[in-house]
C-alpha cells in the first residue's frame, strides 16, 4: 500500500507535454473512436504503428508504457482465451483431444510445483505463466496414459484466432493512448482541461468548476489519506491486529478498526479544509481567476488537423469496406 503512485505523470518537455490538456483529452477520445471504427487486422496494425510513432516522437519510453500495461496482462490473456475457445467460426486450425488421465494429473501436479517454485523470481512472472499454460496444453494432449478420468475435444478456429488477436491489438492501442495522456499531463492540468471542456454544460445547470474542484481536492488528498491509513494500520498492528491473516470474523473486526478511525479523520479533515477555504473567501459557484490560463496554440491546431485526418481516414476505411 505504501507504493501506490497516483497519476502517472512523468516530467518531460516533448511536444506532447506542451499540448493543451483539452487537446489531449479530445485527442484521446477521437483516436479511440477512430480505432473502434477499424475493421481488419492490417488496419489495426497501421493504427498501432501510428501509436508507436506518437510514443517515439513524443520521447516517451516504451518500457514505461509496457509497465502501464502490466496490470492488464491478465485481462488481455483472459480476452485472448475467451475468444479462442468460444468463437467457432471459420476454418478449423487445430483439433486435438485433451485427456485428463492419471499420467497427465501427475504431470500437472509436478508442472504446477515447478511453476510455483520458479515463480519466486518475480521478474519474469508473466512469461512463466505463459510457459506454464503452454506446458499444460502439452500435458493434456500427449499424456493419455493410465486410467482416463475424462476427455474433451480442443479446437481452434481461424475466425476465433483472428478475433482474439484483433481484440487484443485494439485493447493495447487504447490503453497506450490513454497512458500517453496520463504520462504527459499533470493531474491538475487534466482537471483544468476537463473543467473547460465541461463548461458548456452550464446550460443544463451543471457547474463544471465544482466538479473540477471536487476532482482536484480528491486527487490532492489521496496520498494524505493513504499516509493516514498506513499510520492507523501500524497503530492497530501494535495492538496485535493482523490485516493479512486470520479468519474472516477476525478480519472484519480488524478492517473495522481501520475504517472507523479513517472516516473520523476524513470528516474532521474535510471540515477543516472547508473552514480554511471559507476563510480565504471561497464562495461556491462564484467565478474565480486562475494563475495560469490554458492557451490553445499553434501546436494544438496542428494536432487537431491530425486528429481530423485520423478520424476521416478510419471513417473512409469503414465506409469502403
Amino acid at each position, binding site marked *: 500500500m505504501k507504493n501506490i503512485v497516483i497519476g502517472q505523470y512523468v516530467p518531460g518537455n516533448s511536444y506532447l507535454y506542451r499540448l493543451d490538456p483539452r487537446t489531449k483529452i479530445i485527442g484521446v477520445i477521437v483516436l479511440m473512436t477512430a480505432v473502434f471504427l477499424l475493421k481488419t487486422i492490417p488496419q489495426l496494425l497501421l493504427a498501432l504503428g501510428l501509436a508507436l510513432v506518437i510514443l517515439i516522437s513524443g520521447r516517451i519510453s516504451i518500457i514505461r508504457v509496457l509497465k502501464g500495461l502490466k496490470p492488464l496482462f491478465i485481462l488481455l490473456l483472459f480476452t485472448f482465451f475467451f475468444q479462442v475457445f468460444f468463437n467457432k467460426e471459420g476454418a478449423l486450425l487445430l483439433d486435438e483431444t485433451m485427456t485428463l488421465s492419471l499420467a497427465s494429473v501427475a504431470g500437472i501436479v509436478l508442472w504446477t510445483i515447478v511453476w510455483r517454485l520458479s515463480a519466486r523470481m518475480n521478474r519474469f512472472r508473466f512469461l512463466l505463466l505463459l510457459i506454464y499454460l503452454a506446458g499444460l496444453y502439452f500435458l493434456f494432449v500427449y499424456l493419455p496414459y493410465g486410467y482416463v478420468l475424462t476427455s474433451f475435444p480442443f479446437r481452434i478456429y481461424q475466425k476465433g484466432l483472428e478475433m482474439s488477436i484483433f481484440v487484443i491489438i485494439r485493447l493495447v492501442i487504447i490503453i497506450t493512448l490513454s497512458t500517453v495522456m496520463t504520462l504527459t499531463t499533470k493531474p491538475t492540468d487534466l482537471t483544468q482541461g476537463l473543467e473547460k471542456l465541461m463548461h458548456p454544460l452550464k446550460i443544463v445547470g451543471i457547474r463544471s468548476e465544482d466538479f473540477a474542484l471536487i476532482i482536484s481536492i480528491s486527487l490532492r488528498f489521496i496520498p494524505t489519506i493513504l499516509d493516514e491509513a498506513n499510520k492507523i494500520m501500524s497503530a492497530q*498492528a501494535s495492538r496485535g491486529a*493482523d490485516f493479512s491473516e486470520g479468519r474472516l470474523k477476525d478480519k472484519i473486526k480488524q478492517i473495522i478498526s481501520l475504517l472507523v478511525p479513517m472516516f473520523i479523520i476524513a470528516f474532521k479533515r474535510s471540515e477543516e479544509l472547508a473552514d480554511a477555504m471559507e476563510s480565504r473567501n471561497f464562495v461556491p459557484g462564484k467565478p474565480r481567476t486562475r494563475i495560469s490560463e490554458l492557451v490553445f496554440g499553434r501546436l494544438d491546431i496542428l494536432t487537431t488537423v491530425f486528429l481530423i485526418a485520423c478520424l476521416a481516414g478510419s471513417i473512409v476505411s469503414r465506409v469502403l469496406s
Partner: protein
Amino acid sequence: MAIQFREVSYHYPSGGVNFYQAITDISLEIAPKDEFICLVGETGSGKSTLAQHMNALIFPTSGAVEIFGSKITSKRNKKIKYNDLRKHVGLVFQFPEYQLFEETVEKDIMFGPLNFKVPHDEAKLLAEKAIRQVGLDETYLKRNPFNLSGGEKKRVSIAGILALDPSILVLDEPTSGLDPAGKKQLMELFAKIHRDTGKTTIVITHDMDLVYEYATRVLVLHEGGLVFDGVPEALFRRDDLQSFSLDYPETIRIMKLVKTEFDLDIDIYKQTVTEAAREIERVMLG
C-alpha cells in the same frame, strides 16, 4: 539486552510521501528494565522511524535489530512471529486517539489482548487494571471513547497498549496537543508506571524540560544519525545543542542567566525549578 540495533539504516521507498525520512547506521542497546529513555531530535530526524523498528513494524533496509532474541533484518523470516514481538514492545503512536474505534472504552482496551488470544474474562480484568494505571476510574470503561476529552482519549489509547502488558513501552510524542498541565500530568503518569513496574520506557519528545526532569538516558537523532547517547546532564553540558536544533531546558537557561548577570558561583545543572530555586537561595543566603 532487550533491544539491540546493529548498524541499522532505513530508507523509505522512493515515490512515497515520507521520502525525506530515514535513519542511517544506528547502533544502540536498550535494557529491559529500569531505563527511562527520552528520544529527541528535530522534526524529520527519524525518531518515529527508529521507534517503529523497535516492534518490527518496519524492517531495516540494512543492518539488524534484535528484539528479545529475534533478529529482524530486511528480509521477512517465517520463523519469527512478528505479531508476538509487538506484545513485548508496546508502541503508542503519536495522536493515539485516532486509533479508537469501539463503542465503549472497555471494548477498545480489550481489542489488543483479544488479538493476542487472551480469554475474554482475563482481557476484561486487564482492561480494568490498565484504566487504573492511566489514572482514570472504572466508570470510564462503559463510556463511549468519542465523547471523552482529548487528554482522556490519549489516556484510554495508552491503556490499550498497557493492557498488553508489554516489557518495554515506547511512546511517540505522547504529550503533543496537550496543554502544559496535561503534559505534566501525563509525564508524571509515565514516570509512575516506570517506578511501579520498572519497565523500560522510551518517550519521544520535544520538551527539554521534561527530558531533564524524567530521563535517565537521552538519545539525540540528527538528520537520521544518532549523535548523542548518554545521561541528560552530559547532553546539556555541551554547548553545541543548537546545531542539532535543540534547546536547553528552561531551568538551565535561567540559571545560566543568573550566573552571568549576578556573577554567582552556582551549580546551574539543576533538574527541577524547585532544586534551582534552592541552589540560588543557598548561594544568596550563604
